């Protein structure tokens, strides 16, 4: 079996936050990401799901080496990139690209779209200037923006169009891995559907693997092959996407699923909301699980955080 295109091993990130009480009160450790292990097989889309503060975006940034992990390892195509210097990292940057939620702040307002999309080619010294521009225009065309858009600036575009530009810039290097951090969260329903379809098409065409970070389980259901659910910095459940929807075991996953708005008014129902403490106390107790909470396999490919019980 070939190595997965992306692998995270026991990744953790601890931030030191100032303690209340002035300059000399010291700091407290905030564990944003704890011992996260993930594999992204080639040509698949993995959804990383959780709420604000669950650590999903921090995980995405560490994956890209845009933030240094406190411990753990990041492997791209089997190669460990955790400790590479910026110069050593550069060839790997061609293999991994990222798209952010806020396309407005992700695009340089002073640059034309053609320059924005061609910039990665320029940085990596691929082709001559005219070839770079030509490739950028072709890429814009591929993501659904006519070549004439090359001369425009980001402020002239709608949110959906700007996100298309961000995707074009990320994919012009033909990376193997795309980290997409909530790329559809700020978009209207019909535009959201367009961007989801674009990502699905591009994944197929380019044999791309995508780490799709989102709090929107509806989008995750249409787009991903597998899901990993994060809560309080840990992965609490991971399974094939439909298994998560039909057989969620962790109380946090179940809570997330029940919070999805209904698709028909006739399905309205009262909901119970669990507090973080109730979730922590509700960690499943399973025979065969260890004495401390850890991921435990309940069926092939379906892991859930559990303790012996």
């Amino acid at each position, binding site marked *: 079996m070939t190595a997965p295109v992306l692998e995270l091993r026991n990744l953790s990130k601890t931030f030191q936050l100032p303690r209340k009480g002035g300059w000399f009160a010291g700091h407290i450790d905030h564990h944003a990401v704890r011992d996260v292990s993930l594999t992204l097989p080639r040509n698949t*889309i993995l959804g990383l799901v959780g*709420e*604000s503060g669950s650590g999903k975006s921090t995980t995405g940034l560490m994956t890209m080496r845009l933030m240094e992990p406190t411990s753990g390892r990041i492997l791209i195509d089997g190669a460990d990139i955790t400790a590479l210097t910026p110069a050593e990292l550069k060839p790997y940057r061609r293999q991994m690209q990222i798209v952010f939620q806020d396309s407005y702040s992700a695009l340089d307002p002073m640059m034309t779209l053609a320059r924005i999309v061609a910039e990665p080619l320029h940085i990596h010294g691929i082709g001559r200037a005219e070839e770079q521009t030509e490739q950028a225009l072709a890429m814009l065309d591929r993501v659904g923006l006519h070549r004439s858009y090359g001369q425009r600036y980001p402020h002239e575009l*709608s*949110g*959906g*169009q700007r996100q298309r530009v961000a995707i074009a810039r990320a994919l012009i290097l033909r990376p193997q891995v795309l980290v997409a951090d909530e790329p559809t969260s700020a978009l*209207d*329903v*019909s*535009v*959201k*559907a*367009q961007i*989801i*379809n674009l990502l*699905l*098409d591009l994944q197929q065409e380019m044999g791309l693997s995508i780490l799709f970070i989102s*709090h*929107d*389980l*509806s*989008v*995750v*259901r*249409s*787009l*991903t*092959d597998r899901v990993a659910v994060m809560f309080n910095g840990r992965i609490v459940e991971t399974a094939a*996407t*439909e298994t998560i*929807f039909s057989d969620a075991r962790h109380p946090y996953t179940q*809570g*997330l699923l*029940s*919070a*999805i*708005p*209904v*698709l*028909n*008014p*006739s*399905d*309205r129902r*009262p*909901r119970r*909301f669990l507090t973080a403490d109730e979730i922590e106390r509700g960690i499943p107790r399973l025979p065969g699980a260890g004495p401390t909470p850890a991921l435990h396999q309940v069926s092939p490919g379906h892991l859930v955080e559990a303790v012996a019980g």
Partner: protein
Amino acid sequence: MPLVDIQNLHVSFPQHEGLVQAVRGMSLTIEAGESVGIVGESGSGKSVTCMAALRLLRHPPSRITADRLSLDGVDMLTASRRDLARVRGKVASMVFQDPMSAFDPVFTIGHQIVETIRAHTDASLSAATDQAVALLDRVRIKTPLSILNSYPHQLSGGMLQRAMIAMALSCRPKILFADEPTTALDVTIQAQILALIKDLQAELGMGLVMVTHDLGVVAETVDRVVVMYGGRVMEEGPVQAIFDDPQHPYTRALLNSIPGRTPGKQRLTEIAGQSPNPANPPAGCPFHPRCTVALPDCATTAPATRQIGPGRTAACWGLT
């Protein structure tokens, strides 16, 4: 007399690129205690309609015309500042999408709620503070005193949105306009805030206008739906009927484009093209350039709103 009576509302804004026509002939009546969802995408005119109804748009430069624009019998187009101040808060109040920018960052939450209460009533400082505590309690905030003494930046988005709802309820309005109140929130917090708004509406017998681009929010919270596109109403009807049997091609397309409706990784039925440019809207029906069943008439003449069933109207040439 309906609580909200809007007939043939037009709102436009002069801009560099020309006159931006945000609302182009919108009519809506709401009875006391009713809950109505206004659904539409960015630029459909849904928020501007609410802002115009409460006269929250500076006018001029905005241009607002209507055959009728009244809240609880008060003509909002000719109302004096004093009348407007009375209507806002006591008849209708509004909750906005971004609670962080709706609160003043340099005053505590308590200060701002108390200030609102005292601007509308002759309550003493201590009576208004007691009321503020009761309001925060009402929006299910477990530690009202500590929230009162907090500044906006110290609270989470969900907590701030609760505080803003409390403030909006401070003068017991007859109707609450909620403009995308959960769009900036996580799914679980969204579910909690929607449940809260629904409960409060029932408890207080208050009317509700829920403005959203998310059909799921509508399916959760309201009795009647108004679907807007390009500054016009495309379709209106009881929420169950709209979901079970959408008649307007835009409503159908919107419902079909919702992700996650069916199991499995799959392409969605997208609506091709883009929303119309409000500075230069297409002739005829605003949806015709993206409509898969457009007729020749659709490109030339805007269809009139017609009755298509009990309590249901639509504006589409295909339905005649």
